[in-house]
């Protein structure tokens, strides 16, 4: 056996020193960061924090609670939809497909307008079925649209994750005499959830940002409060603050996901 056996992988190439293009790219980024820091310290106005600090915090709370509640409601709705997508029954499959097709294929802003202003036109109908108290409130309308929208995306995540679990897991369960329900909830879903973790985190991040749309139907979320503050000051740093708060939210979520993934995949680590 000589050293040049064809099946031995090539050693990993040593790290290349940065070439000129890379240096320029890094230079531009550093310059932009410094310019931003200089700009921000230049315009920074502490009196604005005094004036709007609390409204930003209350806006942040509205955003967090709205996204949390609609994500959870969406998760509940997504389970039957995902099962419908995988069903053998043609009607169930068709309905689930139509649901996903509509909510993924139309803009969220259109869905929110449709629910808030469109449903408002049918006030009499909603009053007669006793649901007007729900659709009267902008917050609930935002929740309703966001939940249905994310349910469509989550159903697809769930379906993909469930289908990624090997058939052998089902067969193994059945050979032990377990019922389909038990196999599904105790064997397949836990494994699927590990696969789905990253896509779910992605979906929450997208929702945090998409939820800013509710500001146009008069919900004072983080973005709504920002618009308020901007309209009183015409100072762009109000938007910079909002961006930094959104960034912090997403960053916190990213760390949370990393932690959850490390914890959930302990058994896979060698």
């Amino acid at each position, binding site marked *: 056996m000589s050293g040049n056996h064809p099946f031995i992988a090539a050693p990993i190439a040593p790290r290349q020193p940065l070439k000129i293009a890379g240096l320029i790219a890094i230079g531009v980024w550093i310059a932009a960061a*410094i310019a931003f820091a200089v*700009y921000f310290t230049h315009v920074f106005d502490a009196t604005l924090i005094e004036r709007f600090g609390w409204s930003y915090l209350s806006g942040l709370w509205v955003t967090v609670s709205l996204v949390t509640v609609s994500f959870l409601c969406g998760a509940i709705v997504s389970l039957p939809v995902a099962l419908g997508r995988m069903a053998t029954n043609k009607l169930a499959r068709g309905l689930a497909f139509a649901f996903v097709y509509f909510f993924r294929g139309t803009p969220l802003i259109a869905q929110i307008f449709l629910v808030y*202003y469109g449903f408002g*036109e049918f006030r009499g109908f909603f009053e007669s079925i006793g649901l007007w108290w729900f659709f009267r409130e902008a917050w609930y309308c935002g929740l309703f649209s966001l939940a249905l929208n994310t349910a469509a995306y989550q159903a697809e995540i769930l379906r993909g994750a469930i289908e990624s679990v090997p058939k052998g897991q089902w067969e193994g369960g059945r050979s032990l005499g377990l019922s389909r329900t038990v196999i599904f909830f105790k064997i397949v879903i836990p494994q699927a959830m590990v696969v789905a973790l990253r896509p779910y985190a992605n979906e929450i991040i997208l929702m945090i940002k998409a939820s800013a749309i509710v500001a146009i139907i008069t919900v004072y979320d983080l973005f709504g409060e920002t618009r*308020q503050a901007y309209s009183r000051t*015409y100072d762009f740093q109000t938007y910079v603050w909002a961006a930094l708060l959104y960034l912090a939210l997403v960053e916190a979520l990213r760390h949370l996901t990393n932690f959850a993934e490390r914890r959930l995949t302990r058994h896979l680590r060698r």
Partner: protein
Amino acid sequence: MRLVHTIALAAAVSAILAGSAVAQESDAGKDWSTVKIGTEGAYPPFNFLDAGGNLKGFDVDIAQALCDHMKVKCTFVTQDWDGMIPALKNSNFDAIAASMSITPEREKQITFSNKYYQTPPAIAVPKDSDIKEATDTALKGKTIGAQVSTTHAQAAQALFPDADIKQYPTAEEYKLDIENGRLDAVMDDVVVLTEWVKSKEGACCKILGTLPADPKIYGKGVGIGLRQGDDKLKAMFNKAIVAIRQDGTYKKIQDKYFDFDVYGAEPTAQ
């Protein structure tokens, strides 16, 4: 060496940024043969788009008359209310003719011509409303709609601290929402609300009453918004406003839209 370059570049970028932030050119040497005017197009009868998509309204007609008098060719562009001041500052257009009140907060950002009209704010309520007067006690716990970043929204918050103020991107949306029964009252310019309750869409509602215009919030009436430093253009507009007031053009335009005087009291000291 490279680090030095990077820092030099960063310094240059931030210098440009800082420079653009404070730069305030004078228009002394500028030839104003054409002027681009920004308006909203969603605030009838002051500015709106007719069925054919043409800009119409009192603001538009007055601005056109001013331009004719200044012997200047004017073009109109529509711009969302929210971004009106930033768009002017970024030179997307040279003047705002959009029923913008001359307020101290706005004067920190831009400058204004003298006023070209001044009408009081008013409150409208559904015809079957139990609200009898426009006071904080009568409106306690009620929901009032207004357009975002307007003097009216600000005044509603100041006058009715015990009411819930909801803010909409355009006037069209709060009108829709009071028809739908989500709002107990709306606050806007008396002319805007009067026109609306006379129309088919506003059949739901009636004017409850006008309110005194607090000069701290409403400022000195409605003027043409201009960039700070464009003193030559400002002088041209001011001269033209006096001229069309004197030669009867103003009255002719006013009579086309209103059956009362919208100019208000003559400004005391200029």
